[in-house]
């Protein structure tokens, strides 16, 4: 048989279904979302307020079973503008993901930054800067999931 220089390629898409359990802590956290509340947990060991709420502190390794409502305003600690489509993207690009330190908390919360025109990258860079204050904007229709917060928008 003659040796081919081009080899065959088989194309295929695997689709594998999973059903993930929320468990008590995520359930409570997203119940909070339905009342437009962001819930965190205070660690009795290190005193840090962690958000989203947790069932344990990774550093102190103690169980946490308290929920504290945290501020819906915070400081933007970092951000990234994404202008390409990918598997699992939250919304059509362009969009900005941000790293937000909600007031009174001790870690950064991840969400979208929006409420401004995102089509011109230079304009985005003028309006979105690390260190600015941002505030949560909620969707009217709440389904008990992370995108119930539409985005965080810069506070004038």
């Amino acid at each position, binding site marked *: 048989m003659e040796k081919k220089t081009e080899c065959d390629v088989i194309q295929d898409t*695997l689709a594998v279904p999973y059903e993930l359990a929320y468990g008590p802590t995520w359930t409570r956290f997203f119940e909070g979302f339905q009342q437009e509340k962001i819930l965190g947990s205070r660690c009795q060991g290190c005193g840090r307020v962690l958000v989203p709420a947790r069932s344990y502190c990774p550093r102190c390794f103690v169980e946490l079973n308290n929920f504290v409502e945290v501020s819906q305003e915070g400081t933007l600690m970092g951000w990234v503008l994404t202008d390409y489509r990918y598997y699992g993207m939250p919304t059509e690009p362009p969009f900005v993901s941000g790293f937000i330190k909600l007031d009174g908390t001790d870690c950064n919360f991840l969400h979208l930054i929006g409420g401004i025109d995102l089509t011109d990258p230079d304009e985005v860079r003028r309006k979105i800067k690390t260190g600015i204050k941002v505030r949560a904007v909620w969707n009217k229709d709440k389904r*008990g999931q992370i995108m119930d917060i539409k985005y965080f928008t810069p506070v004038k």
Partner: protein
Amino acid sequence: MNKEFKTFKKVLELPHKYGAGPAFTAFYDGLREGKIMGTKCPECGKVLVPGRSMCPKCHVAIDKWVEIKQKGSIVSWAQTDQDFFGKPCEGTYTVALIRLDGAGCDFLHLVGGNLKKLKTGAKVQAVWNEEKKGHMLDIKYFELV
């Protein structure tokens, strides 16, 4: 924990392009021509089917291709009428390890047609689909002789 918590259903969809490499490409080319192609290891002389680019025992490169007989005998078989993920056929599914005449290993494929006399050791021969696409299932199944 008596309370039932909700669940999140997700389907992971993973697109893949698998490079078949020289050995499977050659094997598929054989299927396109209605042939079952194997290779003969220059060291141990074992005939392997499907053909390989390297002998899994001697680890020497192989490029000597040989056509394999399309008849053989059933070494083992398993059967179900139920549906299951990845089932390649309708109705009764019979998968078998078949020792093709002259081969040094078993060939995995389906057994079909009249299955009344199906048993270990039974003689079978390949039945081909009319249209051949360079795919394992160009051989429709092996039928009892």
